[in-house]
C-alpha cells in the first residue's frame, strides 16, 4: 500500500509497483489489439516510402544535398512516433474513462502525477515500438546514416512525451469519441504534414518561412533529422527549448487538471 505513513523507501517501492503495473497493462493492450496499434501505422509508412520515396522521389532529385528518400525517412519515422504516442494515450485513457475502469486507478492511492506518468510511458512505448518497426522498413528503401545518435534518441524521446501528454489532455476534456478524433484530424495531422516531413523549409517562399517556424513539429522533425543527416534548417537550441518547454508545461497542466478532477470527477 502506498501511503504517506510509509517509510520513503517503501513508499517509493509501492509507487514503482503501481507505475509499472500501468505500463504492463498498457503494453498488454498494445499487444492484444496489435491489428489496431502496430500493423496500420507500419502499412501506412510503408506506402509513403513506396509512393513518395520510391516512385515520386526519383523525380524530385536531391533535397538539401540528400536523396529524397534519405531526407523523408527520418520525417516519416517521427510522424509515426507522433501519431502513435498521441493515439495510444488518447484512446486508452478515454476508453478507460468511457468504460469506467479508470475508477480502478482513481480510487487507488497512486498519486495523480504517477497515473499520468504511467499513461505517458504507455504512449511512448507504442510510439517508439512502431517507430522502430518503421525504421526497419526504411532500411529496405534507403541507407539510414546515423550522424548524431544522441540527437536521435533525445529528439524522439522528447517528442514522444510531448504527444503522449497531448493525447492525455485531449482525453481528459473529451466527452465522446468525436472529441478524441477532432484534434488529431484537424490540428495534429496538418501540423505534422506541414512540419517539414516531406520537404525542406528552404523550398518554401520567404513569406511561408514565418508560418513554418511557428509550427513546433518542424523543430522536432528537424532535430530528429539532424541526428541522421548531420544538417538542419532550424536552430537546435531553440528546438530543444521548445521540446523541453512543451514537456514541462504540458505535464504541469495535465497534473493540475487531474488534481481538479477535470473530465473525470463530478
Amino acid at each position, binding site marked *: 500500500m502506498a*501511503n504517506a505513513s510509509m517509510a520513503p523507501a517503501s513508499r517509493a517501492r509501492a509507487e514503482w*509497483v*503501481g507505475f509499472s*503495473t500501468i505500463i504492463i497493462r498498457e503494453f498488454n493492450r498494445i499487444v492484444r489489439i496489435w491489428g489496431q496499434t502496430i500493423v496500420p501505422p507500419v502499412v501506412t509508412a510503408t506506402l509513403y516510402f513506396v509512393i513518395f520515396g520510391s516512385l515520386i522521389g526519383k523525380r524530385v532529385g536531391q533535397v538539401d544535398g540528400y536523396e529524397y528518400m534519405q531526407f523523408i525517412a527520418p520525417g516519416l519515422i517521427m510522424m509515426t512516433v507522433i501519431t502513435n504516442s498521441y493515439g495510444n494515450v488518447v484512446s486508452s485513457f478515454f476508453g478507460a474513462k468511457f*468504460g469506467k475502469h479508470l475508477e*480502478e486507478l482513481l*480510487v487507488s*492511492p497512486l498519486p495523480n502525477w504517477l497515473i499520468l506518468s504511467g499513461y505517458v510511458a504507455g504512449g511512448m512505448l507504442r510510439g517508439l515500438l512502431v517507430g522502430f518497426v518503421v525504421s526497419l522498413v526504411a532500411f529496405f528503401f534507403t541507407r539510414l546514416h546515423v550522424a548524431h545518435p544522441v540527437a536521435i534518441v533525445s529528439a524522439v524521446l522528447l517528442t514522444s512525451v510531448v504527444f503522449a501528454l497531448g493525447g492525455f489532455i485531449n482525453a481528459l476534456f473529451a466527452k465522446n469519441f468525436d472529441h478524441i478524433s477532432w484534434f488529431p484530424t484537424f490540428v495534429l495531422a496538418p501540423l505534422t504534414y506541414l512540419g517539414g516531413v516531406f520537404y525542406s523549409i528552404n523550398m518554401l517562399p520567404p513569406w511561408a518561412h514565418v508560418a513554418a517556424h511557428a509550427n513546433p513539429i518542424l523543430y522536432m522533425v528537424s532535430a530528429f533529422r539532424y541526428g541522421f543527416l548531420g544538417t538542419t534548417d532550424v536552430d537546435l537550441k531553440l528546438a530543444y527549448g521548445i521540446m523541453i518547454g512543451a514537456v514541462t508545461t504540458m505535464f504541469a497542466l495535465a497534473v493540475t487538471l487531474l488534481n481538479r478532477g477535470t473530465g473525470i470527477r463530478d
Partner: protein
Amino acid sequence: MQALALRQLTKVYKNGIKALKGIDLEVAEGDFFALLGPNGAGKTTVIGIVTSLVNKTSGAVEVFGHDMDRELETAKSCIGVVPQEVNFNMFEPVFTIVVNQAGFYGIPRTLAKQRAEKYLKQLQLWERRNSIARSLSGGMKRRLMIARALMHEPRLLILDEPTAGVDIEIRRSMWEFLRELNEQGTTIILTTHYLEEAENLCRNVAIIEGGRIIERDSMVNVLRKLQTEIFVLNLGGSLAAAPELPGFRATLADNHTLEVEVSKGQNLNEIFARLSAQGIEVNSMRNKVNRLEELFIRLVDVSARAAVAET
C-alpha cells in the same frame, strides 16, 4: 477509533442539484453498517466522495483518522470499494483484473498472484480466472468486483448494492462471505435495496433521504421503533369473511390467507387461541414484509412529507 467520519458533508452538482445537505455520520471500526435510502437520496454521492470519485462541495471526510484533504493517499489505501455499476475492463481476463488492481495499491506481483488465487477461490471464480470479464454472468461480475476490492486487504470495505441482480443462492453465499470478513475485523459499509439483507447483516444503520440523515441508530433500536407488524397466516380451510379477532386488525387477502396486524405488546398466542376457538386451522405463518422495510417506508414517507411542508 472511527473507521469513517463525515462532518457537515455537502455536495452541489454543476446542474444545481443539492445531493448532500450537511451530512454528519460516524462508523466505528469493526462495524457492519447499513446506509439505506431510496433512489437519489444521496447514498452513492456519499460513497463517491469517500472513495474520491466525486469532489465534495464542503465538509470533511476522515478514514481511520486520516483527513482526506490532507492525507488523501493514506486514507485511500484503507478503503476497498465495490461500486454499484460494473467498472472493470470487459476485455481483460479475470486474473489480470485483480492482479493489476493489487499493483495499483503497490502490492508486488508475486504476492498479488497469491492473493488473487485466495480471493478468486473464496468467491468461486478461480475456474473462470482466464475468462474474459465480458463473458461472466451478472453474479460473477459482482463477485469479481468484491475480489478486486479485497486485493489490498482494506480495513474498510464499502459495498454499493453488491447483490443487485444476483440470485438468492449466490446472495446468501455472499452474505456468509461478508459476515466472515467482518468477523475477521474488516469494517463494512453496505448500501442495498434488499432491506432483508441489511437487517440480517448489519449492526448499525443510517437512513438517508433528500441529502440528509433522517435516522441513525443500532439496528435493534431502529427496529424497536416499529410499533406494528403484519403477519400472514396460511389457513387450513377456506373462509368467506375475516374472523372476529378483538384487539387485532384482521383482513382476508384471499379465502385461504389471513393478514393480522399485531401491535407492540400484543401476544401472538391470543390470535391462535381465538382462531382455534373458531375452528380455524393455521398451517403456516410469515411476516408480510420484513420489519426494516416497513419502518424504512414510513420514515422516508414522513421525511418526504416534511420536505413538501418546508417548501
